[in-house]
């Protein structure tokens, strides 16, 4: 017991000297949601004046919105955050949601978790240009380990499927 007490005291002493104290004022830039543009359709017809509400959440909600023009076209600017988390050993995971409000109905157009801080990882580096059909079935795609559940299509290839069964059988 005294041994334990000694070890506890050593630890408390070390900690009280502020071994791991550090300033948290510095900042780096991470991309929470890449810039996005595209066209919204309902049953194949462009959705004019549809209201898109975007919510990004890393530690807290950041909301903005836009409206489609006469061609059903919309644009969202990229969302960046200056944060020390890019430089600290913390996992990056950001929730991305877009709801479309159109003709008294709500559609969850996009629900993803961005797992890398770089811009345009949702489209493997290319600009994120989508076409979304509000009356379509939800599709799930994983890109750069970031899953996206959406009513949209865009030019991107999904991550290859992992053959877990072979890994399990071989042990690697």
């Amino acid at each position, binding site marked *: 017991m005294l041994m334990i007490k000694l070890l506890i005291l050593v630890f408390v002493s070390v900690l009280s000297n502020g071994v791991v104290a550090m300033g948290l004022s*510095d900042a780096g830039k991470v991309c929470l949601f890449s810039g996005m543009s595209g066209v919204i359709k309902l049953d194949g017809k462009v959705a004019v004046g549809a209201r898109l509400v975007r919510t990004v959440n890393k530690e807290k909600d950041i909301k903005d919105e836009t409206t489609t023009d006469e061609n059903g076209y919309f644009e969202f600017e990229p969302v960046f955050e200056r944060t020390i988390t890019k430089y600290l050993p913390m*996992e990056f995971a950001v929730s991305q949601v877009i709801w479309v409000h159109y003709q008294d109905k709500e559609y969850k157009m996009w629900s993803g978790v961005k797992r890398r801080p770089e811009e345009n990882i949702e489209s493997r580096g290319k600009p994120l240009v989508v076409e979304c059909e509000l009356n379509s079935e939800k599709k799930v795609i994983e890109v750069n380990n970031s*899953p996206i559940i959406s009513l949209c299509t865009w030019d991107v290839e999904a991550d290859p499927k992992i053959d877990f069964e072979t890994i399990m059988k071989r042990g690697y």
Partner: protein
Amino acid sequence: MNELPPEIAAKVAQDVYTLTKSDTLEDALLTLNNKYKGILEFPFSEKNLLKGKTGGPFYIKSRTAFGFVLIGKGFLEGHVLILFRGTQYLADWVTNLNAMVSSSAVGQPVHDGFNQAFKSMESQVNDFMGRLTKYNIHTINCIGHSLGGAIATICGEWIQKNYKRVPKIYTFGSPRVGLYSFSSMCTNNVGSQNIYRAHHTMDVVTCIPIWPFYHVPLIGTDYRLESPGSMYSVMTNHDMFEYVKSVSGKSWQQLSGMYDSNTNDASIENWLNDEASTGLNLLSIEWLSKALIYVIRKVFDGAAWLLSKTFSTTFTLMDQLAYVLKKGLDLAENVSSWVVALVKKIMRMLGMGLHVDIAEMTTHFIRYVLQNLQERVNRHVRQVLDNVLVNGRAI
């Protein structure tokens, strides 16, 4: 074969961040099925979304998802996965640094922040374990990265104690969980063969809290992986994506052979006796913490009476440590020689001159050396972290 291959354990440790960050449980389910359909399932509704508290006593606490429990299907039939999330939020990071010790399931001292994080989920894990009877389970896997790895370790010990089932524990880049006696008992109770601790050699998170905290398993194999970045690549070396890359395509056996990680008594003695110049780095700090405990243990073994003398005074901790080591010098040669070796090793690490003989090693002198060591270790860890922040400013 009941062990999970490294890649599967790493993938689920990576994906728990994604699952806990999904907008709704339904979205988490869709995400899970997209990747693990027919292999892993949520066992029952929202009960599986473990919620934990984060934040230390001096910080605002918030409730947030911390992990998932999953049931294996198909070729994973009979497996249960209890997954814990690591440091995703700043508050979690602060929690990690906000350490005291408290008692684990078997009454051993563990980092209080990690312990409280587990305790906030204990009743839900208990509820889950109680429901497992309707499944034919042969292996319970506790898995996590970073803070999640520490919680997985505490959870594994808790399951062993409360359910008399031996779990498998998989951790990636876990900080040190508890003091020596915890590590020792957890290693004995769970069995070193059931504990898979994978870590990049330059992952600074695995070096905190600094001694006297110990990793689990205390003996046996740990899986040291080559670091993807330099010592200052704090983010890269701790990144779960990098851990997945490091272990993919390799078996546990292959990973165990990557570095010689044998640190039994003989290897500690060899390290102490090695007169080659040793700088202060993450690896040597790890060795030093093991050597320090080893020598203190030898002193107490050689002079049990010393235990009752120690702490009976109002000396500071550093005084007491110096006092114990000085007393060790007065014992038989098989103890005193290790105290001398330790002090000289520390002096070499600090770049201090070695022109000192045993007669000059007074309590005051030993205290001076220990004080220097502590300051230098503190400075070193701070430098690593500061450098990260300086890089941040540069960008």
